[in-house]
């Protein structure tokens, strides 16, 4: 992937450098951007590259933060990493741009307790109706489970 292309988009959506860009194996580029810029970033990618494909969205608990990873395929891999607060993580939904992201966002919501603003269908995707509370992929849940 051309780093200039990536830096150009980051500048256009008014991100302030220095930019956190890494190369991963398997021709994958990893870029960290502020969570409130994700929507604009995705919009730019879609306008700039007509072959875009969103593979999925990964939510993960790193212990101190909640991360959302948007995995794109643009002839090469691009992962956009957005870091959210541990308490009440919140981010704008991208379903207005990519309706197929709804399943991925709903899964991240119920597994990690992330709130997606503008997500129309917030119903449970995978967990049972009998599931009372707690987020299965949060580290704190594991500690309770082990007890």
């Amino acid at each position, binding site marked *: 992937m051309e780093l200039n292309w990536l830096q150009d988009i980051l500048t256009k959506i008014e991100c302030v450098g220095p930019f956190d860009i890494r190369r*991963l*194996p*398997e*021709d*994958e580029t*990893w870029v960290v951007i502020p969570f409130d810029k994700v929507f604009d970033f995705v919009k730019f990618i879609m306008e700039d590259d007509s072959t*875009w*494909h*969103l*593979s*999925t969205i*990964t939510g*993960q608990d790193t212990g101190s933060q909640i991360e959302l*990873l948007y*995995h794109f*395929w643009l*002839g090469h*891999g691009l*992962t956009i990493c957005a870091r959210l607060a541990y308490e009440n993580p919140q981010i704008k939904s991208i379903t207005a741009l*990519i*309706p*197929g*992201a*709804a*399943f*991925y966002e709903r899964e991240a919501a119920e597994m990690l307790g992330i709130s997606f603003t503008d997500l129309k269908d917030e119903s*449970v*995707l*995978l*967990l*049972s109706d009998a599931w009372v509370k707690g987020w*299965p*992929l949060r580290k704190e849940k*594991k500690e309770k489970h082990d007890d």
Partner: protein
Amino acid sequence: MMTKLKIPIGPHHPLLKEPISFLLTVEGERVLESSMRLGYVHRGIERLCQERTYVQAVHLIERICGICSHVHSTAYSHAVETLLGLEVPLRTHYIRALLCELERIHSHLLWLGVLAKNIGLDTVFMYTWRDREIVLDIMEELSGGRVSHTINIIGGVKIDLDQKMMDMISEKLEELAPKLTIALGLFENEPTVRLRTQGIGVITKEVARRHCVVGPIARASGVDIDVRRDVPRPPYNNLEFNVITHTDGDVWARTLVRIMETRESHRLIQQILSQLPPGDISVKAKRRVSPGEVVSRFEAPRGELFYYIRSDGSDQPARIKIRTPTLPALSTLPEQLRDVNLADAPVILSGVDLCIACADR
């Protein structure tokens, strides 16, 4: 004004092979809209993997799906090997790809049989499932398992192919070829198939892309995407094959794409056998994985299979994310099941190649 009825299909229903719940709102013979509920076979595999070692997780991952179990463990093993910086022998890639292509034939024949059954062609259903047995026999001879093969380990594969085994596969492939011609020809030439599938369950290219659809469904809608070609890695970068696409986006187009892909996979297996390089089948892998992240994409029978793994330096993965190809396909169902004939609903449902165990994980 006719009364609107709500018809529940599932979570347990004779039409469905696995549990999922649909609620169709019907007025007379027309389906007005639909909703669905997933999760009836959610086993929390991502979380369970994070509580096991990298080696133990292979066996759990094989059990995500009963049809494409091998490609799951291949994508996972490849991801861990990449994190470890391991260069697995070339022969390993060929043996893994051989099983992947056998799985593709098995999966496509299974799907064609389900479609035939749902449109009332029970004889064709029996032909395709009979022929599928030949592929299952090969896999059983190779690995000892018809469904779960567990040939992958971190660092390679557990089984090697000797000349006797290769001769057996070649013989079975020869036996399969004329049967495929008859069974697949029935789909192409039987007018009933066209009548029941043409113009049904149409997904336009734009809808397919915005719903992130992958695999034969995306290709039948004109989205030219295939990980085997787009992520060049052995052995596919040394093999000749065509990526089959169509533009109609209906169930008929998906049928044609799968028919031609079955033939391509048959051709690929012959190439793999003739080009199989000599050498080892595995290398030793460390149990602990240095901190890092990796993304792994493989072409499962239903399309792009996605794995993300984060390691924290221990012998257990810190995070495993699995996105199976069925999930995005399911997201198009409410759109496909809007303002259609009720009699077409089973065709539309089979058209997305439901693999609920994969979607739910």
